[in-house]
């Protein structure tokens, strides 16, 4: 996102993934989309109450789903693995677990 170029990691997917057609949406780099998602996730942690928890589940669930799609694209379409994308998926999964835990603990699903 900063315009810097990562190196090609031996055993990884180099810049194949970052340079692929799947790396942009509406001409916007996925790194910007990721930045916005992570910023919203940070905001969700800072916002107290139900709306913070709602924002947390929205951002983390969306992040996990999109990261899983990227993982599928890396393995079956681009045939190259992006280590940074895998790291992001792990973070998103952890964030989703935290978001679900917050909701369950607050009793939002109870009638």
């Amino acid at each position, binding site marked *: 996102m900063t315009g810097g170029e990562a190196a090609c990691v*031996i*055993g990884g997917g180099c810049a194949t993934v970052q340079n692929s057609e799947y790396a942009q*949406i509406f001409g916007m780099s996925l790194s910007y989309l990721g930045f916005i998602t992570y910023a919203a996730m940070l905001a969700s942690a800072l916002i107290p109450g139900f709306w913070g928890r709602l924002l947390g589940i929205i951002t983390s669930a969306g992040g996990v789903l999109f990261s899983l*799609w990227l993982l599928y694209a890396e393995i079956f379409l681009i045939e190259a693995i992006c280590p940074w994308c895998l790291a992001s998926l792990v973070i998103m999964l952890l964030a989703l677990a935290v978001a679900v835990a917050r909701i369950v603990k607050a009793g939002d699903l109870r009638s």
Partner: protein
Amino acid sequence: MSRKGWLIGGAVVVVIAVVVALIVVSVSGGDSSGKDPSASGVTGVADAIALTKGIPQSGFTIGKPGAPVTVREFIDPQCPVCKAATTKTLPAVINGPVKAGTAKLIIEPLTFIGPDSSDAALAIAAAARQDRAFIFSEILYANQGEENSGWVTDEVLTSFAQATPGLDVAVWETDRKDNALGDALFAVADRAQAAGATSTPTFIVQGPGGTEVITGAVEPDVVLDAIKAAS
């Protein structure tokens, strides 16, 4: 379920719908950044000649053999960041300390990205037998295709060889099928491992003043400063 529960459930459903829509857009849009070198003429030859003019080349090395500082650059011919380094990092290094005789640059081709890397690296190694590995690799990077797209064909490599000044293409053609070149590339992989190079491009700057490992298509000053420190 509570009103909050319904809100959360609804939000998750909306998120799923939005992500699916984004995926559909992602699949249908965008252009591939790679190009097909076979579809166009060889470019970058004049720049490669201008960059290397008057500088001795020997094997994989450019620069005076007795230069006190050695810069080893581990590359993969298909690595787009290595291509970026050829335009962003290397010109200042070649025009500066290499031309001045204080440093020499050795390119070390690795082949981890895919089969195209191997064929291209063998072509570079064959050019090295005629002391033209560096200029050959410069031309190759100027015409680099999309990773693992099958862009490294005999036709494309031959066009690079024909564009390399002073290269005997017939000898190069024979050399690049020599099994000994494969052994030379295995040796490069061993050196990369020994040097702790885990990505490309990696610059190992070594001299009397010490050793520095630099990774990525960095600003020229990063390598120039390392050369000064190693001198």
